[in-house]
Structures are given as C-alpha cells and as structure tokens.
C-alpha cells in the first residue's frame, strides 16, 4: 500500500527512522519501557507464545540438534551421511549447520528445557519484529500491534524448533531494512550483506530475502498510478544503492564451509526432489481442516472485502508480494509464515485509518507497569514444566521403545517410521543407523524414499522391499497398516507400548547387533 502515516508525532519519529537520539535520562528510558506501546509489545508476545504452545517439537528437531552436537564435538562439517544404513556414505551437507549449532548449544545448556527457551526467544523476537514492521509502515504503534496480533495465529506453523525459525527472523530484518531504506535511511542496507552471510549458513529462506530485495529494485524502475496500484519509483542514486546491496548479498552466498553448494541447495530442492515435495508433510498444501488454514482463508477473504469496499491502494511491490505469498501459502503450508510477514504491514496500514496514534500525554505509566508485570508473570507461569515437556515428547515419539533398544540390542538393519528417524538419531546415533529420517534429500537421491513409501503404505511389494533392503527388524506405529502386515506375516512383536511396536524377523534374530 502507499505509505500513509496517519499520526503527527508518531509519523515524524517513523519517518526520521535513523535513530539519532540524544542521550536521555533514566526516566526517559523508563518511560519507554513502561509506555503503552511497550505494554502492547508484551501482550503481543503473550499472543505469540500462546500460539506457539503446540509447535515446539518437530520430527526434524532431533537430527538438527544431533548434527549441531556432532559439529561442536568434532569441529568438522559432515560431507557424507553417517546416520543411516540405507544411504551410508552418500554425499550430504549440513546445509543449515549454523542454525543446528545454535540448537545444539541450547540443548547443551538445558536439554529440552534449553530448547524450549530458545524457541520462546525466537518467538518473542518474531513477534517484536512484526510489531515493529507494522509500526514502521503505518507510523502508528497501535495499528502495528493490532496487525501483528491478528496475523500471529497463522505463524505457529513456523515456530517449530528448526533453523527455519531463524531464517524468518532474518527475513523480517531484511524487510524492515528495506522499509527504512524506502523511508530515507540508506544506511539500513548495510546490515544486509553480513546478514546474508549468516543466513546462507542458517537456512535456505535466504532465497526469499534475495527475491524481496530484487523485487524492491525492479518496482523502483516504475512510476505510475493505475487505479489502486501505485509504483513510487526510485531515483537513480537509490536504485544504485539497492543494486549494490543486492550484488553484495549475492557475493555473500559462497561464504560457507561448503562454498557455493549451500547457495544452490534451495534451487536443487525445488527442481530435483519431486517425491520430497509431493509426499513429505511440511510440503503439503494448506489444510483447511486445521485452524491455521481456516484462519488464513478468512483473512484472505477479509482482505478481498476490504479491497472492494475501502478502495485500498497498494504499492506495486506489496501487491506482487501479497499475491505471491497467498499462492505460496496455499500451495505449501510451510510458507504460511511468508503470508504473515508480508500481510502485517498491509493490515497495519488499513487499521491506521481508524486507529488514533499513540499520545504520550495520556499514557498511564503506573498502570502499564502493573499490567506488564502481571502479563510477564502469567506468561512465565504458563510455560510448560520439564514434566510437561517429557510428556509432550512421549506422546509422539517412541521414548520407551528407545529405552528398550538400549537394553536389548537387536539385529541391525532396523526399519523405522519417517517421523521417528530424527529422534532415533538423537538418542542412539550415529552408532545405531536408521532406515530413514527427515533428511528427505539424502533418501530421495539414493532411492530410499520410494522404497519407504512402498513399505510404510503396506503395498503389495512391501515385504519384498524389506527383504531387499536387508531389514531384520522394524520400529513402527502399532496402529499402522505396516504393523498389521508384519504381524500377519509371522514377524515377532518383541516390544509394544501404546505408541510403538518392535517387530523382528525370526530368521534374522540370531545375527549380531551393530553395523
């Protein structure tokens, strides 16, 4: 949308952007900390943390942590797979190694509890950056807060303990820098090249960062107004600045332990991993069977109604980004976070029409302070305990089965559920090799992924495929079709609990453990 700053004092502060503040008294800082905008930030954080409750652990969390631990212990980055027996020795890179190291450090500091704190910190940062982005765009803190609060319930899809959370933080920083640049603060672009050095080593979302910078530059070539579509144009000096920044960000991409291979990985995934994208859950399309999907649909329709009735104006870059992320979020649920990031400033500008700006003169600092203290205390109280975390893990992962395996080694070549592979790596690897885990790229290239789908789907060739892969035991979901197939075929169930079962091929039971 066109930048429309609705307030006066607030808009001046936003337009100035460059934080050339004079040295202030302690009371000045204190007022900032317990101001109404700060209260809104705390409440927004609460919304974000409550939304993130259910999304702590992802099946991939475990192997990310393990890889990070391995890097910290050996000071060497892996170049081949060491965790599976089906793709052992296959070329593989830890393409999110920096994020994995951070996760491993959090795990070292406090185990599951440390990981929880890490996730909460990232969630708070994301919420804060969204708020700030909405404020920068609209010039209205209240509108920024409302916008962030409205879109945050869609964000939990990205709040799982994986390097992608950090990638989205970097994307938010990039967009904020571009907004500051657009508002006249050119130095904001200096942050980007070093940011991209970190980014390319953390997560593949750096391609979106490049895309956004490129789009801002291309949009700056045009100056027109067609109906509600506005292209503001950029003067040549600013276009050159942006182009140079883009070029420097590109130059930052090979600055990785793997050279330029990391930079090429996202494109490789998009073009050379069709099975991964077609079958792995995080790549599945938007699901309207869950609240996030319904919420996103209602949002999109609300935006449509707002457009028709309010005759909103959009900047060219905003419209392109909005359409792109809506399509991307529908096609792949994992991109719903992009929708959150690029929708927030648009919604903030809409709400700025009706929301009066912050007026320091009527602020109630004492009340704010009390509410902030209460909110923080409540948020701390509502955080899960260690027992809650353990229960959360036990609900979805074969905790007891793994404990059994430690005490009862079984013949090598164990088939496992895809979603449990990461947990097995974390608990028992690299000595215990898995059949498959969340590193779908390794398994797709080595042909393991199609075999896994045949076996897990209990298709006609399932048993033959198990035999071909030299599988002698299986750790499977007891309620799944494969468990029924194994039981029907004479495999012995040597362990079972409410979640998992371990089946052993009697013919191979006598083999020695270890590989």
């Amino acid at each position: 949308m066109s930048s429309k700053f609705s307030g006066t004092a607030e808009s001046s502060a936003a337009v100035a952007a460059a934080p050339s503040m004079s040295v202030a008294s302690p009371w000045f800082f204190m007022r900032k900390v317990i101001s109404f905008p700060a209260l809104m930030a705390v409440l927004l954080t609460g919304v974000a943390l409550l939304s993130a409750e259910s999304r702590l652990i992802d099946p991939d969390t475990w192997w990310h942590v393990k890889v990070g631990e391995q890097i910290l212990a050996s000071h060497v980055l892996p170049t081949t797979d060491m965790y599976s027996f089906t793709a052992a020795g296959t070329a593989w890179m830890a393409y999110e190694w920096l994020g994995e190291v951070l996760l491993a450090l959090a795990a070292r500091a406090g185990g599951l509890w440390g990981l929880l704190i890490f996730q909460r910190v990232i969630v708070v940062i994301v919420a804060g950056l969204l708020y700030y982005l909405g404020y920068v765009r609209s010039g209205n803190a209240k509108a920024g807060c409302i916008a962030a609060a409205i879109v945050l319930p869609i964000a939990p899809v990205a709040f799982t303990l994986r390097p992608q959370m950090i990638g989205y933080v970097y994307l938010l920083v990039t967009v904020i820098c571009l907004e500051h640049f657009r508002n006249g603060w050119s130095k904001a672009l200096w942050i980007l090249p070093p940011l991209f050095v970190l980014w390319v080593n953390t997560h593949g979302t750096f391609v979106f960062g490049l895309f956004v910078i490129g789009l801002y530059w291309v949009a700056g070539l045009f100056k027109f107004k067609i109906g509600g579509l506005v292209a503001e144009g950029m003067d040549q000096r600013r276009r050159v600045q942006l182009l140079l920044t883009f070029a420097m960000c590109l130059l930052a991409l090979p600055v990785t332990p793997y050279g330029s291979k990391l930079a090429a990985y996202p494109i490789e995934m998009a073009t050379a991993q069709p099975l991964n994208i077609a079958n792995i859950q995080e790549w599945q399309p938007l699901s309207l069977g869950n609240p996030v999907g319904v919420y996103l649909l209602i949002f999109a329709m609300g935006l449509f109604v707002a457009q028709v009735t309010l005759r909103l104006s959009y900047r060219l870059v905003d419209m392109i980004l909005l359409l792109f992320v809506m399509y991307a979020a529908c096609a792949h649920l994992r991109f719903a976070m992009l929708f959150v990031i690029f929708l927030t400033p648009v919604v903030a500008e809409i709400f700025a029409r009706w929301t009066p700006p912050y007026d320091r003169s009527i602020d109630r600092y004492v009340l704010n302070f009390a509410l902030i203290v209460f909110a923080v205390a409540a948020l701390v109280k509502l955080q899960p305990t260690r027992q809650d975390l353990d229960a959360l893990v036990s609900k979805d992962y074969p905790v007891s089965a793994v404990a059994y395996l430690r005490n009862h080694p079984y013949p090598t070549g164990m088939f496992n559920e895809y979603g449990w592979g990461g947990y097995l790596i974390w608990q028992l690897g690299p000595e215990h090799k898995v059949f498959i885990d969340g590193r779908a790229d390794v398994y797709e290239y080595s042909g393991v992924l199609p075999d896994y789908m045949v076996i897990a789907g209990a298709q006609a060739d399932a048993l033959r495929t198990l035999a071909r892969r030299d599988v002698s035991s299986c750790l499977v979901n007891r309620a799944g079709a494969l468990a029924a197939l194994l039981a029907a075929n004479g495999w012995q169930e040597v362990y079972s609990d409410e979640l998992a079962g371990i089946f052993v091929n009697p013919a191979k039971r006598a083999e020695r453990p270890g590989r």
Partner: protein
Amino acid sequence: MNERERAMVDLPEEEQTRSVGGESNQKKRAAEEPASAPVSIVRNIFSFPAMLGGLLVTGVFVARRNFDVDPDFWWHLKVGDGILAAHKWPVTDPYSYTAAGNSWLAAEWLSEVLFASVNRLGGFRGLEALFLVLGAAIMVALYIFATLRSKNSKAGFVAAAMLLVLATANFNLRPQMLGYLFLILTLIALERFRQGHRRALWFLPLLFLAWVNTHPSWEIGLGTIFVYWMSGWKGMRVGGIEMHRWEPAERVRLAWTFLLCVAVLPITPYGTRLAAFPFQFVSALPNNLTYIIEWQQMPFDQPGPKLFLILVFAIFAVQIAFRLVWRLEEAALFLLGVLMACLHARFLLVFVPFCAALLAATLAVWVPGYDRKKDQYLLNAALLCAMLFGMIWFFPSRAAIEQNIATRFPLHAVEYLREHPLPGPMFNTYNFGGYLVWARGPEHKVFIDGRGELYEPAGVFPDYMHITLLKPGALDVLRSYGIRSCLLERDQPLATVLSARADWQKVYSDRTSVIFVYEGERKLTAKTRGWNVATEKEQR
C-alpha cells in the same frame, strides 16, 4: 439513486464509468451493440456467438469423452432401474447386508430414473451421450448467463472458456450435474428479471419442483434467490459495491417466487423428508465429511485448484488496479463460491457460475462487442459442422467404454464371481460397492457403497475405516461381521495383509482387483513356516 445515496459514491466521475454493474455502462454497452432488425433463425444458428457456443461444447467433448464415471454412478443407475421396474420408491435399504432394512430414501430419484431410462435405451453409449449432453448444457447455459450479464457474447465466451477447465475437471455422470444446470438456469432467470423481464421468474417454482426430486443442491438455489432479494433492499454504493434497489413490485414478485419455490419442496414421493435431507447429511455425517474425497477440502497442490487460485488472485489484482464496481449480489455469491470451493472440493462447480457473471462483466470492459455486420456465416457453419462431425467420429465405442470401466471397476472380477459363486458375506472396497450394487444387486448384498447417509448412522462406516486402515484389531472387526470373502483393490494394504495370512486364500487377481476367501485357521502354521523357508532361500 437519491441525493443521499449519490453522496455515498466517493469515486471521481471518470472512475464511475468502470462500473461493470452500473446502469450507465449497461446503457453504453447497449449502444455498442445496436438493436438490429429481426434476424433469421438460420443466421442466428450460424452466427459467431453460436459458433463460440459450439467451441465450448467441443471443449466438453474433448475433456470428458472417456466415460470416466464416479463410483457412485453405478448405484444411482441401479436405484433408477429399480424404481422403473417396481414403480415404487424405496424406503429401506435393499442392497447391503450391513444396513439391510434400515430406513433409506432415494433422494435423487428423478435423475436416477433418467439415467436408468437412457441406459435401457442406449446402454453405455447412451449414458456417455447423456453425460456429454449434460456437460454441454451446463457450459452453454454458463455462456448464456455470462453473455446476458455482460451484454457481450465475446466476453461471455472468454469467461466460460476460462472456467471450462475448472468445470469439466469436476464433471461426473451423477445427479449433481443436473443440480448445477438448474443453478445456472436460476441465475439466468434472476439476471433476466434484474434486466426488466418480469416474467423471467415464472418457471422457477417448476424448476424447484424438479430440483428437489433430482439433487439436494436446491438449497443453494434458494440461497441465491435470497441473496438477490436482499441485495436489492436499498440503492446505494459503498466503495466498489453497488446495490440496485428493487422496485416495490419487483421485490414482492421475487419474494413470492421464493415462497413458491419453498412451497413446492414437499412435493416429492417422500413428502418433506427429501427437503430435510441436505441438512441431515451435513449435520449427522462427520465421518463422511472427513474421509470421503469429494467432501474434503480443495487440494491446492493439484493443477485444477492451482488454476482456481490463479483466477481468484487475478480478479483480486484487477480489482486493485482498475477499481471496478460490482453488484452486491455478485460479490457476495463470488465470495461464497470461493469459500465453499475451498472448504469442499466438490463445490468448485458452485464457484464456477458464481464467478462467471463477475468475470464476464469485468472482461466486457475491454473485450469489444459482437458486430453482426462482420459475421461470416458460411465459415461459422463450416466450423460448426466440422465440430459436430468430429464429435460423432470420435465418439467412443462400447468396447472403449468397457475397457475404461475395467481399469477402475472390478468388471472382470464380477464376471468371475458369476461363474464361481463364493461364500458370503463378502467385504468390498468402498469404491467397488456401487458397481457391485449395479452388477449383482440386490441379490448379492454389499458391505458398503457410496450411500454414506446409510452407513454412517448404522455404524458401518467407522468399522469400514477401521478395517481398511488396518488399525489394531482390524481383522477381528472383519471377523465380527462373519466375512467369508473379500473383493479389494489390488494394491490396498488390506490386500497385502490378507496375502500374507495363511487363513486367507487369494482366488482371483487382475490389474484392478483381487478376491480372497477365508480358509480358516488350519493353514496358518504351515504357511508361516513356508514364508521363512522362502526367505532363507532368497538369502542363499
């Protein structure tokens, strides 16, 4: 509009001319297509707009000539056949042994009788012709509706052609095709009424009389009439939404039409029970809504839904750029169509007509109108004849149709069963149930078929899911029904499990299906030993 209403219009004057629903533009467009002297019927038949209609019909033929029927088609056919034979409407289930005698009504009996009649007259080829006729009728009606709305046959054609891909992907020889045709006819009637033809509504009560006996989608039609009625409550404009007030007489006429349409709903062989059926289905059948594919949400990773997204977003972008003015009823129905299609993929065919008006009216801003003076009647005639000839030439043979059926339904397995009667009761895959009902019912009873409203209340549907998903105890559930044989899809997990079990014997298998017979416990031990021996041999 009065002064107060005019004051609500906040657009500069040049933007008001972009009103695709506005009176000013309608008059302007009417001027582009000047009223002509009466034209001969022959010229109308071979006119350019008629040729465009022929293209749409050809598009339907090309897309759907393969007799790709839905699993439910078969039991619809059987029910219709049963009604024609017995001259009675069923009130209990005659086709299954799991819900035998349970209360059940043929909620779509009129269309089922139509299908059965055509089958009696022309067999599969007759049904294929009916399918193509229905599909063509829907697209032609859509074209007429879009043209009526935009007053521009080219814009109407482009809109219909753009929606053709979405529409044909969801065409299926089932009663819902007639339901969607009736919906478009309702929209045509309402549009003509909107344009001043007072008598346009007279046939709607008759249409609803047929509709309530044909398919439960009549409530969408009622909802559409209501939206039109409410949208004319007062005249005003809010941003890009325009409301044209009905004249008092028009409002009364529309209200009476609505009430008459409601009044005919109990005129069915089942009284008011058919009218209540759609609401019962939605509220009392959660498993159906969860597990049956057509009730699931739109799969956005498929090409058709991606095209749907592109279309919706393109309309959004055009609205931003050109600040079009839309009628309230069109905007409301468009949004409703988007919502319904996203929530349940089967409602994509509801989205299509709701989108057509808006799309055609938008395109009419840029697409030039039809100019009769430039028409090439001979060329049009030649093209139409070529299309007709092509459709006749490439019409599928009975053998081709049967071959297509065999790839999806157990045609050969049923032949085997006729020659080799097997012990019952027989468990069958859901997708095969309808075909079994048609091919062997009612003498041979099925475990389950597509009549979800029957099996879910009877508790059969949850058991079916338990068995086919191989949840713990699945085979016990199978045994609890006393199942002695199974007709399954070849690659489904249950077939793999039964293949591995000694107490089940595979007696038939082809590319589509497989049949197992329960042999009891006696072979269990021997079979297990045999598998281990085979495995050892492979290892050596």
